[in-house]
């Protein structure tokens, strides 16, 4: 009995020493953590704020709807907006079905064998490959080997490969949240596995898949290095899959590196940031609704 009390006293001191135990080390620790968290938020505000303040006033209707002239020094970015939309659309249309079906395979069909592990590992590696390598590959494979030239098709295929891992991961995550009972219910009613997936499992995680798609779009819009090497940097309005195009991020790079026009550079950067903010907001909204629905 006495032993136990002694031990207890060792752990919890008799007097209230707790206030004294907060020594300078602890203070510094919390100070550092709060400081770094604050700095991170301030850095974000600084980057977005600086670019928007300098650029947003230069975005007007004319900038959005007129074509660039003198290498982008004057005029607007109409053809570049079209190019960005076109290229993003093509890459998502190619990547979405493959990515979603791949995720379905991983979550619904695959058994944990060494073979499946290898395929999963390959997907992880693909996610880590830097964009410039995709660019090199797209250039030698799509542009030259397959003869697609610098075109929306080459760029779209390259981008599709890049966003595939994002899509697979997001879809897999949302498929995993569908309760087993849904599948069992459907199967016991006599539906086949595929019918269950198409009519029960996929519809109930639609918003999760949508979030993945939106994130993929975000990646495609922001990508520069790979697009520059595969879709070219032509300033014309693209009309067909085989036309070259310039996206907003490539345009921003060229304007910034050649110092053509401060106004246009900031305006393009602002537009790009606004686009990314909107994409993020939509993704968040979809996720929020999804969480609410899952809770209900």
């Amino acid at each position, binding site marked *: 009995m006495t032993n136990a009390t002694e031990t207890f006293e060792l*752990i919890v001191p008799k007097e209230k020493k707790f206030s004294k135990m907060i020594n300078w080390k602890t203070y510094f620790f*919390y100070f550092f953590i*709060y400081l770094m968290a604050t700095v991170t938020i301030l850095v974000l505000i600084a980057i977005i704020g600086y670019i928007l303040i300098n650029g947003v006033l230069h975005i007007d209707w004319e900038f959005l709807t007129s074509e660039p002239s003198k290498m982008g020094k004057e005029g607007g970015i109409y053809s570049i907006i079209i190019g960005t939309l076109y290229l993003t659309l093509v890459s998502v249309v190619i990547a979405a079905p493959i990515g979603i079906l791949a995720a379905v395979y991983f979550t619904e069909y695959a058994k944990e064998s060494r073979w499946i592990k290898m395929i999963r590992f390959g997907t992880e590696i693909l996610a880590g490959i830097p964009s410039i390598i995709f660019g090199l590959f797209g250039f030698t494979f799509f542009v030259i080997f397959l003869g697609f030239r610098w075109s929306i098709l080459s760029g779209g295929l390259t981008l599709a490969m890049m966003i595939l891992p994002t899509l*697979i991961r997001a879809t897999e995550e949302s498929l995993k949240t569908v309760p087993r009972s849904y599948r069992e219910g459907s199967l016991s009613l006599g539906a086949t596995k595929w019918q269950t997936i198409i009519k029960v499992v996929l519809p109930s995680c639609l918003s999760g898949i949508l979030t993945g798609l939106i994130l993929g779009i975000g990646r495609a819009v922001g990508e520069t290095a790979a697009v*520059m090497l595969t879709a070219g940097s032509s300033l014309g309005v693209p009309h067909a899959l085989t036309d070259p195009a310039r996206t907003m991020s490539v345009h921003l790079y060229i304007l910034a590196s050649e110092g053509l026009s401060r106004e246009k550079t900031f305006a393009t950067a602002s537009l790009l940031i606004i686009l990314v903010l909107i994409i993020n907001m939509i993704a968040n909204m979809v996720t929020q609704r999804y969480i609410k629905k899952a809770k209900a």
Partner: protein
Amino acid sequence: MKAFEKAIEKLLLICAITATLSVVIITLFIFKEGVSVLKDYGIVNFIFGSKWSPTNGQYGILPLIAGSLSVTLGALVIGIPTGLACAIFLSEVAHKRSAKVLKSAVELLAGIPSVVYGFFGLAVLVPGIRQYILPMVQLINKDATTSGFSILAGAIILAIMILPTIVSISENAISSVPIEYKEASLALGANHQETITRVIVPAAKSGIISSIILGMGRAIGETMAVILITGNMPKVPGSALDSVATLTGTIAMEMGYATPEHQKALFAVGIVLFIMIVLLNIAANFTLHKLGGQTND
């Protein structure tokens, strides 16, 4: 009906393999283009050659490797303490609302395109270093000069860019440390700070280390940001204020106007980069799954 189901399963399998197949094709084609230069020029000469001067037919990538590594190391020095502090803040210290603010800030940082970071660095950091940092350095070393395009600028921007990777994976690892660890430590009389630094962080170390490795991979592979702010001078740097060229930046800059032989050399640079990245990814995977198994799953 059964045949149909089987066919569907095969179709799905093909989709699942696409990503892995892509990796294989990418590897094949990058090697196919670049390997001849490695052979003709000699791997040792290529990797340890100290002169990158394509117009003279000199393809030594030591300066490029030094450039990439110095910028990456700088980014890690800034990024690791910041990222770790943010991860601890999110999982252990913050109230719900402030955690939410920081979390969405980090998500947004991940969403901003790299070329925008590069432009920000070009517009703010490069002139800032020239105007404010250089005079400070000159107080100590009178001979210091810089154009502002420097390792320092690249390291700062890359640190911001790898922050989301480090924060999100570390936070995950820290949050998944069993609550019993924390309770036991607190019950033994350790305060919250001691519990975090001596119990929780060590228990989450495998996740934290792999987040750092992945962040390193991102920093080495990053192109558009560094190309705008590091100056693209292929020489081994002497100080943090020197200009450097990186592996990625060199490929992106020179691909447009390269002669066929020069192009092949750039593909060989791509091979080196590719191998570095794949090794880092495997290392990250290994740490996450093999070391300290109690923190994950």
